[in-house]
């Protein structure tokens, strides 16, 4: 009882002396520092912070491992799928700067967060494209794949969204949506290496535009030199080709974006683990300093008490 009273007295003296963050820790004393009651600076707060930072570090390390393993799985699929649209580019040419009336911008993003800045770059580029291709009698609409781009584009471009698709889990090759378009620009993050992702725009033209281009000569004009088997006309072949091209490019875009997402998440989690490690070091220093200060204070009190008794 007397000890408790002494402890309470010590607390009342201690509170105005110490700085405010430590003050709250006086209330939550730990038993080792108490010793014989009186003033002692508690390291409880610092220790709690250290524990939570260490847990966070473990979690981010685990997330990095998970992202790395998912990346490995997706990467082979992505590299294989690149072969799907390369013949299209060889045959039809890639035409990013074709002037069209109605264009649709398909923005591919991720559903989950914690993946660094890739979603913001995709959204930024989509906005730029939108500005570039709007003017009199031209209209641009968005089709959004993924939650993250939806949240960002919702803020200012609400009127222009025509479709949004989320929860893309597996990688389907079934695209049965039909959006009317003249030119379709797909914005995604192309995967170059684990730390480098380039935001890319791929363009898919509708069959009418392709016909127009092929009349105009150039690469598309070579299409005439191919013989068309069967009883279909060139227009129909072009239409089928265009849809298939759209689905291939979209498939590849989604895969590449998934790769980039995992890679970005890996590097983001890696840097956050490193930051947590740094924070832990700094906290350890503070902890040791506080601990040594409290020991020194106790020693001083004991020694001055002892010398007061003698003298």
């Amino acid at each position: 009882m007397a000890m408790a009273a002494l402890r309470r007295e010590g607390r009342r003296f201690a509170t105005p002396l110490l700085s405010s963050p430590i003050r709250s820790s006086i209330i939550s004393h730990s038993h080792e520092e108490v010793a014989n009651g009186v003033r002692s600076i508690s390291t409880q707060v610092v220790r709690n912070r250290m524990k939570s930072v260490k847990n966070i570090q473990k979690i981010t390390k685990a997330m990095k491992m998970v992202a790395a393993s998912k990346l490995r799985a997706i990467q082979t699929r992505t590299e294989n799928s690149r072969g799907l649209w390369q013949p299209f580019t060889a045959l039809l040419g890639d035409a990013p700067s074709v002037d069209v009336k109605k264009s649709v911008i398909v923005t591919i993003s991720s559903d989950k967060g914690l993946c660094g800045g890739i979603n913001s770059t995709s959204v930024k580029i989509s906005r730029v494209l939108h500005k570039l291709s709007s003017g009199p009698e031209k209209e641009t609409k968005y089709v959004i794949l993924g939650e993250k781009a939806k949240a960002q584009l919702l803020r200012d471009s609400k009127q222009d969204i025509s479709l949004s698709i989320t929860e893309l889990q597996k990688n389907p090759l079934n695209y049965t949506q039909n959006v009317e378009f003249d030119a379709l620009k797909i914005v995604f993050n192309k995967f170059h290496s684990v730390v480098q992702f380039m935001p890319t725009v791929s363009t898919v033209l509708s069959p009418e535009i392709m016909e127009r281009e092929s009349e105009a000569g150039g690469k598309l004009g070579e299409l005439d030199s191919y013989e068309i088997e069967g009883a279909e006309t060139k227009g129909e072949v072009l239409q089928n080709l265009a849809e298939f091209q759209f689905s291939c490019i979209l498939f590849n875009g989604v895969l590449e974006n998934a790769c980039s997402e995992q890679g970005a998440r890996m590097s983001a989690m890696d840097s956050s683990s490193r930051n947590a490690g740094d924070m832990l070091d700094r906290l350890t220093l503070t902890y040791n300093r506080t601990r040594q200060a409290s020991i020194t204070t106790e020693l001083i009190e004991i020694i001055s008490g002892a010398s007061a008794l003698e003298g």
Partner: protein
Amino acid sequence: MASAGGAAPFWRAAGMTYITYTNICANLVRNCLKEPFKAEAMSREKVHFSLSKWVDGKPEKPTIRSEGSEH
């Protein structure tokens, strides 16, 4: 073969796109496989996403298209 000579193939007249047509054909081919290969092909067929059309800046109710293989 398309004996209609110049007219649109039957599926295009029915409103399907080329992609839906090829997907249905692919499903049929997958069903013809024998047992060990059939299972892995079926796993490739599954798709799951939730689609919602936007009208005037407001999303309509999302429809979840989760096509697994029912065969």
